[in-house]
């Protein structure tokens, strides 16, 4: 190996190490930005106005589902939880949350489906189905403006670390050469709907 290529490969290694460092480093809390801030002015305007935000269509559907009886138990969400505007305030902002019965964290969709299966005795709603999206949007609506703060403790930390490891793992993909998150679960935003 000539001196020049040696220096070049050293520089390459250093650059790689720098990059790896920046991938692994946490973004300080004060510097975290919502994807909302990257949106165009027009898109923000549409989202800010409930009269034009298409998400509100799902919130309205979710409200109807909240009050509709389902399953052999003949119970609606509202029969146990009452008015979602009071009972569901802050709930979406706390998820994913640890579920002692399952011994693992569950996200909001899984929590809704668990409630559906156990209390309403109804078949779980398909992930990404219109109904589950609507109910989730309606529940999440009640946390609007609240910071998303899932509890991080001894029970959830192993899952958090596993998630971090998966996020940073280098994997083969034609479109994704750098470590990246492939969101198959819809991901999360730092701003409640």
């Amino acid at each position, binding site marked *: 190996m000539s001196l020049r290529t040696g220096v070049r490969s050293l520089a390459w290694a250093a650059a790689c190490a720098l990059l790896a460092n920046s991938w692994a480093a946490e973004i300080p809390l004060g510097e975290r930005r919502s994807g909302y801030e990257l949106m165009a002015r027009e898109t923000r305007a549409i989202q800010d106005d409930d009269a034009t935000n298409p998400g509100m*269509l799902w919130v*309205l559907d979710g409200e109807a589902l909240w009050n509709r009886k389902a399953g052999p138990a003949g119970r609606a969400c509202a029969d146990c939880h009452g008015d979602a505007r009071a009972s569901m305030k802050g709930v979406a902002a706390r998820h994913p949350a640890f579920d002692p019965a399952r011994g693992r964290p569950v996200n909001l969709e899984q929590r809704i489906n668990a409630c559906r299966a156990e209390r309403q005795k109804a078949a779980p709603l398909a992930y990404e189905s219109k109904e589950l999206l609507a109910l989730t949007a309606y529940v999440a609506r009640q946390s609007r403006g609240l910071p998303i703060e899932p509890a991080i403790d001894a029970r959830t930390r192993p899952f958090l670390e596993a998630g971090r490891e998966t996020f940073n793992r280098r994997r083969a993909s034609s479109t994704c050469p750098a470590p990246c998150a492939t969101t198959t679960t819809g991901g999360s935003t730092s701003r409640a709907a």
Partner: protein
Amino acid sequence: MARAVVTLPAQAKRGEIIEIKTLAQHAMETGFRRTQTGDLIPRDIIRRFTCIYNGTEVYRVDLHPAIAANPLIAFNTVATESGTLTFQWVGDNGYTVTEIASIRVE
């Protein structure tokens, strides 16, 4: 669940220009897309939107493929008299949604 939302002022002065915003829940499938196995996904879009103010058509839109899902239609009209506004969306596969709103004009 076919849903539409209409937003307009509850009251206005006679002759005032008011803004009406409408949002319809619809996939607006263009008819040009194919599935992974190559089958054409049939077209399923809203074809026409109308707004009728006390029996008079004041606004109409013909919609075509390549208009985004959940079309947002905002327009202005002049508040002429108290009464009702009827909004109707008509589309493929028998899609029809009607919303009625009232306005008080002083």
